[in-house]
């Protein structure tokens, strides 16, 4: 243990010079850092905000398709207005071409900057099956293993259920999204769902650490182990193992179909939920719908080294693109999550408070939450709230 702490203290000295290349430095000094789990990746204390030059951060921006570009433009507008010290490196990804050059450029840019904000890249499933989902490729290449979504009832929004406060932690790299398929016999297709012990332990660990950090009392694992005994059985077992190390947090499990039924009748019973990839897709969309829709909830994808922020339900929104009716809330809240990650807490709170205040103005609500407001009206109001709080803003 002494050697371990010596490495860590040494790394604190080396850090300013080597920045993100910590791993190589440690190898050079002949000691091996133990597993990533000791690095306290959740509190992100050992990982410096990356790519910081002259006090300004560089963040990769991937506009994507549909409503992505216009929403991200609004984010840039708000950031410029509030003098947020973030510069965006824009990388376009063309979803219509079959080559993977674009997405590889984007991945390289994210490796360089460490943080990204993205819109959803459309997957045209009329193309050949070898053309994989670009979003999925990004997540797996960067090992963004945890997708975190916080669903909270917002005071200004009318919904059928009140007082919802659920954190959903979804395994983001394996499970049903392994993209391993083949046609063994003509007319018979097999798709592989992979569950590994390492990834299940990793995501369970993340869930419990996050629950403890946020003062949450209960973690529920969502699964279908009665049918998929080996696969989901392994996932459940890993969750139980990790749970035993957190006696202060209650752990229980629920089968996914029962979970969805409970969510639409009594969503207040859930606190933190952890699950494999596909069930995460279903549950996060159900929860987003319960609190008011896809326009309101931000999502974050965390890995040990990289973080990518986007809207929680990852919609392309082609039908509402370029009509000034999309709800900018989700993307703006995602950018606030990104600012928190970059430790620019003051800017994050200021923008977040402005957004929540704007939410209370019912006449500004966009179509998805039952109003008739336009995107630009909402953004203008948010900027007005930021300005009225007296913080430094740019000449408009």
């Amino acid at each position: 243990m002494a050697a371990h702490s010596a490495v860590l203290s040494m790394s604190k000295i080396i850090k300013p010079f080597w920045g993100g290349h910590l791993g190589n430095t440690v190898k050079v000094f002949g000691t091996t850092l133990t597993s990533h789990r000791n690095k306290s990746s959740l509190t992100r204390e050992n990982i410096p905000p990356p790519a910081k030059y002259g006090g300004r951060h560089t963040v990769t921006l991937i506009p994507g398709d549909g409503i992505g570009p216009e929403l991200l433009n609004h984010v840039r507008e708000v950031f410029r207005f509030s003098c947020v010290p973030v510069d965006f490196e824009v990388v376009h990804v063309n979803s219509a071409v079959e080559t993977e050059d674009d997405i590889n450029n984007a991945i390289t840019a994210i490796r360089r900057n460490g943080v990204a904000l993205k819109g959803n890249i459309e997957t045209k499933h009329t193309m050949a099956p070898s053309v994989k989902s670009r979003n999925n490729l990004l997540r797996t290449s960067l090992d963004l293993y945890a997708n975190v979504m916080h669903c909270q009832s917002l005071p200004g929004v009318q919904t059928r259920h009140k007082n919802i406060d659920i954190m959903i932690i979804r395994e983001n790299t394996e499970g049903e999204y392994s993209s391993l398929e083949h046609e063994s016999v003509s007319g018979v297709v097999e798709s592989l769902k992979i569950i590994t012990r390492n990834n299940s332990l990793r995501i369970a660990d993340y869930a419990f650490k996050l629950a403890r950090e946020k003062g949450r009392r209960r973690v529920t694992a969502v699964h279908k182990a009665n049918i998929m005994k080996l696969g989901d059985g392994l996932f459940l077992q890993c969750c139980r193992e990790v749970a035993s190390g957190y006696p202060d947090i209650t752990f229980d499990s629920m089968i996914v179909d029962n979970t969805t039924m409970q969510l639409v009748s009594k969503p207040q019973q859930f606190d933190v939920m952890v699950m494999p990839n596909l069930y995460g897709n279903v549950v996060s969309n159900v929860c987003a719908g319960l609190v008011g829709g896809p326009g309101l909830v931000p999502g974050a994808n965390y890995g040990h080294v990289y973080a990518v922020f986007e809207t929680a339900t990852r919609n392309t929104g082609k039908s509402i693109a370029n009509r000034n009716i999309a709800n900018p809330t989700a993307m703006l809240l995602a950018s606030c999550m990104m600012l928190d990650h970059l430790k620019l807490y003051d800017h994050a709170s200021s923008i977040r408070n402005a957004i929540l205040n704007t939410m209370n103005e019912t006449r500004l609500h966009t179509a998805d939450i039952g109003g008739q407001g336009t995107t630009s009206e909402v953004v203008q109001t948010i900027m007005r709230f930021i300005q009225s709080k007296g913080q430094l803003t740019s000449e408009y």
Partner: protein
Amino acid sequence: MYTHTHTFKEMQTVTLIPGDGIGPEISSAVMKIFETAKAPIRWEERNVTAIKGPGGRWMIPPDAKESMDKSKIGLKGPLKTPIAAGHPSMNLLLRKTFDLYANVRPCISIEGYKTPYTDVNLVTIRENTEGEYSGIEHVIVDGVVQSIKLITEDASRRIAEYAFEYARNNQRNSVTAVHKANIMRMSDGLFLRKCREVAENYKDIKFTEMYLDTVCLNMVQDPTQFDVLVMPNLYGDILSDLCAGLIGGLGVTPSGNIGANGVAIFESVHGTAPDIAGLDLANPTALLLSAVMMLRHMGLHDYGNKIQTACFDTIRDKKVLTKDLGGNSKCSEFTADICRRIQDLD
């Protein structure tokens, strides 16, 4: 869809499987209601406990199979799921024996049983034989497990055809295929292709495709936009329970399983509730509505409508409700009230 043609008042045989737990009492409630309605149904009661046949394979008792093969229509109560009994679940055995490929759940809001969602009127049709529930799993190396999801052309075409037939026979306007072909390109892509092909033959029905996550998102915000949904096994499992939750849970949701060769088994999908078994506290609504679904399947729409109206009126009236519906009446009182209404309707 298989409609029996028959002369008025000709008795139809139906195999009745009461089941375990509260199964027997809710089955007798249904039989009583049918008797009062003078429905032309003759019940043949059978038990299904797994027995080991020749060759060591588990199977359902031969007299149960014989009865089902002859009558083609079955009504089933909840069955106990055995843990470590050495044999697969009875539901699975039934499904394999009769090739029950389509699970149909109409989810209609019950006036009088208030949930946050009103005006729900949709049907989920779930492929029930393959997909993620093929049961094929391997441990590749220690700590890595692989589950295989199987999608075949034949099964996909069969379920799509059933969905469109159902839509046509029940005056539904649109069929929506639910999939995740952006991620599972080949498997869900195949399913989608078959649905599209079948849709060509049913130009009178509108066909749309929607991602699973979009369906979930929209379902909890506005379920009225959905009509008939067709999907592979896992999504069907999740969505059908989600929709059941919208209208009030498994205690009030009917369900039907359609098999090859015209076999159809209608069932309640709730559990056996062993804690209230034999205490006359159970709610027979789910089994009753499944029986109504059965009547409609058999072409006996008048009887079906009469019984359904009586059931909904009782619930709407709120005077004689079982505990799970918010009252404190007994099962027999609830049943008696429905019977009374049926007699008044005549």
